[in-house]
């Protein structure tokens, strides 16, 4: 069994992959539905004499509604799954097993990171397919290439989110603390930062908010080159720091090098 097989087993046997897939599929299937019936729902909820009129939903609204839900409930799921896998110090005795055997720090982090990102992206794209299908059925075709382009940008954003969780988790000895801090960063701090006009265009948050402008055609893919580059750069940086913070045993490193220093 390799560390890659171990991480795949972790996702499958702990049902984390199933939970992620179910969560994003649910969000993807319900968002266009709610968008389509938003006017009816509001009308039934308002009191007599009050009339609420909403513009008819567009295909971009269907996808944007999914993206909005994915950024909240979906993000919580991603952060919980990523923290559970990447908070090494939460189970110090189990960590000793790996520290004594894995020589290179990156071997400890990279398989966990890649497998978690893969599962999150797959779950997100599954939900996006559901959102695209229902939007096409109920509202209108949002366009496959533009939906896929948004999916690609959001995948990059998810890779950045998981790298951030890996970085944050390296400072904590509890999964709960790692989840709380990560949610604070991704649900509060980053959205707050993107309110600042001159910062917003190049923050990773711009990738997550790309659904409506990209699918409606108001923005092209070129508009997201800078935030995509920033996200990719930050992802590499956060991951590199996380790898550096992992402690392996001096003995396993010595064994890997084939000698014991005297």
């Amino acid at each position, binding site marked *: 069994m390799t560390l890659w097989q171990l991480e795949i087993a972790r996702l499958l046997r702990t049902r984390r992959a199933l939970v992620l897939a179910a969560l994003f599929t649910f969000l993807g299937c319900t968002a266009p539905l709610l968008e389509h019936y938003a006017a009816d729902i509001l009308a039934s909820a308002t009191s007599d004499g009050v009339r609420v009129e909403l513009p008819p939903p567009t295909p971009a609204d269907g996808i944007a509604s999914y993206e909005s839900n994915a950024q909240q409930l979906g993000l919580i799921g991603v952060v919980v799954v990523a923290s559970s896998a990447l908070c090494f110090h939460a189970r110090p005795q189990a960590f*000793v097993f790996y520290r004594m055997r894995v020589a290179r720090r990156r071997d400890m982090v990279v398989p966990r990171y890649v497998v978690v990102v893969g599962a999150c992206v797959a779950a997100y794209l599954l939900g996006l397919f559901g959102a695209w299908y229902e939007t096409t059925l109920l509202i209108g075709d949002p366009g496959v290439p533009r939906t896929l382009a948004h999916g690609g940008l959001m995948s990059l954003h998810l890779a950045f989110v998981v790298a951030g969780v890996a970085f944050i988790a390296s400072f904590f000895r509890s999964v709960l603390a790692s989840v709380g801090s990560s949610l604070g960063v991704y649900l509060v701090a980053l959205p707050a930062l993107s309110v600042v006009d001159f910062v917003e265009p190049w923050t990773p948050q711009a990738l997550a908010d790309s659904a409506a402008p990209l699918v409606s055609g108001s923005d092209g893919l070129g508009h997201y080159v800078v935030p995509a580059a920033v996200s990719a750069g930050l992802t590499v940086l956060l991951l590199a720091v996380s790898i550096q913070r992992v402690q392996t*045993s001096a003995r396993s490193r010595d064994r890997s090098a084939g000698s*014991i220093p005297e």
Partner: protein
Amino acid sequence: MSVGRAALTSAGLSRDFGGVGVFDVDLHIDRGSVYGLVGRNGAGKTTLLSMLAGLEKPDSGLVKLDGTTVSMCPDVPEFEPWLTALEVVELSAGLGAPRRSGVREQALCDAALRDAALRVLSRVGMESAARRRVGGFSRGMLQRLSLAAALVVRPDLLILDEPTSGLDPEGRRTILDLVRDLKQESTIILSSHIVHDVESVCDALGLLDGGRLVLQGRTADILDAHARPVWRLQSRSSREARILAAALRAEEWTLSVEPASEFGLLVEAASVEAGERGIPQVVSREGCALAGLTALDSDLESILLSVSSASASTVASMTGGGTRTWRGP
């Protein structure tokens, strides 16, 4: 301490956690021996073992190893609960094995690793639980699984931190029997606060007190050096006790003979050898029954307690080199 080839030596090994930790530890552990590290809770055993295993970086000092493969079993082993015991051992074996280039070669290598994992699980008595998930294992099963995961890499040095803590008597005996067998293959360092376990399997031992190694030597040498020539002799009647007391007092090798409990005597001799030879001779000569003869305070636990208590008052003033070493003849 020893004339054997050293599997591990340390010099001035220290790790200070603000007044507590490990200070100036000089170890010498012979190749193929079982070395027992004893001490109270909080004496620094786990910190020292972590430094020897390379898990903790010392503030100062160095560790020299003869060999490249070190395995450690922590005091409370923990594994992924959703893995089977076989998978844990396979993972342990696989992480140290190089990947093969071809699919067929890799499959053969995986099969060999699986065979090795099954053999080791069988050796620790866990073959029937090999395909059970670890999540439902008892503490004893986890200890044995930890040992299997360590053994499958054929370590030159095996470090066992409190391997028998929390185990029932049968589990303890299984682990200790395994340790005895393993010294043919590896050098073993075993920490414990159960002195009887250390006494029964360790060739040599070190006593940690307040983070300092206050005693180090071969177990037999330490026992010999500290054995007090005092015995409790138990007779069958008060009459025989009086006869024996008078006869023993007349011997020139006895220092004192005092009554102790009913039909009992406390006999202090000039030397261990004189008492061991002389007391049975006197009992036999006088035609008395010997209901019991027990050496007092000569077990390892009593010795370590007395050394530990004595060191507590002096260690505070030590600046290093405070280890008392007993050498073999």
